[in-house]
């Protein structure tokens, strides 16, 4: 089943949120608008709850470690008044040889309504969504190299806070595109939202084959890639990339692709700098940039809660109709 058929139910509503690919523009706008409502709720201080998911049970199924994503999903579910349970599967049944489907069947038997899934294999969320009971929604919290759709939406949300028209933007995504689910989801989201110029920048070893077919331009040279852009999205460089002969060293990587104030000069003067975190200071980004005035990295984190609330609310809405 294609992702679109899986995600959108017969009423045209969002049943699962597995990937941004193939979703209609209006649906993305709806998520952003909804998130804007939630972002205003707390006013930055008191945590206000809304009863949208009261009586519902959300299970965070994390087959891969995560702090940021899991915590913001937990907070989002809490603020929607859901009961939340976080399971770190890596340490429990997966090691005992219980199959993924068995784990799912067991959790279904506990009458939950929503799974947030993170898994190291691409397609895991798609697989789970194809096999869960029909009353359960699955939200992809990141699967392998494939997709991290809520990250893409919170990035789009952050961009919209600073730049008003997606249709006039140049966005550069810099770093390890090959292994990045964030990059793939961002590319889909930005293209669907109408960004005319999406660039990926990195060494040949970290740019996957045929990425141009996703509607991006490929740059090997950082300066050329950053010229006149409005948004820079830096990606985390995993230390293990030195193995497998993808890169010689982190210091050489920083020399060629590390984002510094000086390198940023070729971008538009009002450029914003983003990063999905956690950041490696001195590897892909200089501290001066990460902590500087153009950095919106911490805003991304707080927007994560509102955006995940919006996605959960939309998926839950499709269930009640």
């Amino acid at each position, binding site marked *: 089943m294609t992702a679109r058929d*899986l995600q959108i139910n017969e009423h045209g509503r969002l049943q699962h949120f597995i990937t941004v690919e193939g979703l209609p523009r209006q649906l993305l706008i709806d998520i952003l608008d909804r998130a804007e409502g939630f972002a205003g709720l707390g006013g930055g201080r008191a945590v206000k709850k809304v009863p949208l998911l009261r009586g519902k049970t959300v299970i965070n199924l994390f087959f891969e470690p995560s702090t940021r994503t899991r915590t913001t999903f937990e907070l989002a579910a809490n603020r929607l008044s859901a009961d939340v349970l976080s399971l770190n599967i890596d340490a429990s049944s997966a090691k005992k040889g219980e199959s993924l489907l068995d784990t799912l069947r067991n959790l279904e038997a506990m009458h939950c309504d929503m799974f947030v899934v993170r898994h190291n294999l691409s397609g895991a969320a798609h697989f789970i969504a194809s096999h869960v009971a029909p009353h359960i929604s699955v939200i992809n919290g990141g699967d*392998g*190299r494939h997709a991290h759709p809520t990250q893409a939406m919170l990035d789009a949300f952050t961009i919209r806070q600073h730049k008003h028209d997606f249709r006039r933007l140049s966005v550069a995504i810099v770093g390890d595109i090959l292994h990045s689910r964030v990059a*793939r989801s961002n590319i889909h989201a930005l293209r669907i939202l109408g960004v005319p110029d999406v660039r990926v920048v990195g060494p040949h070893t970290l740019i996957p084959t045929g990425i141009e077919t996703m509607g991006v331009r490929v740059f090997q040279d950082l300066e050329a890639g950053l010229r006149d852009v409005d948004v820079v999205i830096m990606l985390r460089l995993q230390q293990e990339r030195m193995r497998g002969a993808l890169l010689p060293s982190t210091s050489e990587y920083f020399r060629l692709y590390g984002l510094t104030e000086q390198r940023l000069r070729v971008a538009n003067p009002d450029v914003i700098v983003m990063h999905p975190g956690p950041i490696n200071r001195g590897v892909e980004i200089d501290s001066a940039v990460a902590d500087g005035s153009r950095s919106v990295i911490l805003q991304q984190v707080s927007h994560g809660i509102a955006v995940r609330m919006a996605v959960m609310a939309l998926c839950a809405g499709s269930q009640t109709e």
Partner: protein
Amino acid sequence: MRIAISGGHVIDPANNIDAVVDVFVDGGRIAALGRAPKGYKAERTINARGLHVIPGLVELSARLGEPGYTHKGTIASETRAAAAGGVTTLCCPPDTLPVIDTPAVVELIHQRATASGRTRVVCLGALTRELKGELLAGMGGLRQVGCVGVSNARVPIPNTEVMRRAMEYAATIGMTVFLHAEDPWLAAQGHVHEGATSTRMGLPGIPETAETISVARDLLLIEQTGVRAHFCRLSTSRSVAMVAEARRRGLPVTADVSVQHLHLIDEDVVGYNSLCHVRPPLRGRRDRDGLRKALRKGVVTAMCCDHQPQDRDAKKLPFDATEPGVSALETWLPLALRLVSEGVLDMPAAIASMTTAPAEILGLEAGTLSEHAPADVCVFDANVQWVLTEDGLLSHGKNSPFLGQTMRGRVCYTLLGGVIVYEAA
């Protein structure tokens, strides 16, 4: 038993027959075509009017589950599926458990196949002990118990010296080496073709060069050692071009492609369809078209079905964790007929690629309706349409990417050595 098959459209590529003629079977062999031998009195007559009569199909690679993987299939279940698919000879690759690297394993498979009695089963012996790519397997002994060739199955031999010596030794005892070309480093973590589709899906890919580099290396070693070699399941246009060039230079090389690779492409994996997880991976449209052309031009002579039944659990996982393979025996003939209706091959060429060509590669007296040949015959209706369902498959493996599709063409009778081993209900 004397069986007359009357009024059918006989296609016997080995003898250039493509006409309506009667076939007379006697004593397990083909007694005559056209006119009955003197004094012949049929004990049973099969009315084949409107049907096709062809030699029983010869499959170059069928994994039968035994020994070692009986949860995926058994010799009994898979030979039953073969008979229903019109297949009368199966060649079993050596990656069983234990590996076919001792005569005892070969004898076990032969015994069970004889007990089942539905198809002939021949084996490829291991090229290296336990398929580890280090020490030579006892090829001479394997040959003595009837192995028709040697192979390391899908386990690569990265050590070039070992490959050279293995080829030299196989050449010494006159055995054909069956090669699966895949560079283990370039293929590494991949399960699908490396290209725009794998990038989009975030699946680690297997580049075309994983196959072509290995083909190039092996061709040079074939030339050096003089061994007769067969490339199994080529998947890219580039590699068939390299084999074509080698054949032009007179190297003793043949190749096959799987019927799945002639129909499906990498985009069919979209939606993480694990039923399309095969090895080598489904490539792009251009490669698929290149394989079709190579088969049409005779560069690749054989089309196989690469039967690999899987248990349900093996396919019910996130894509990269699933096992490769298609349960293919029962869809082989209809998918070949689909190639005919799509104009890729004419009917005699399609039948030849499933009978005479694989029989020749295996060095077997099979795949023909010549007088005195064993009466392995398939009678099929080329026009009947049916929908492929799990329940309809006799194979233990229900893993077909064609489930739910309408197939055209169905086997009516299969004869093995003059005995009817399958008769459609």
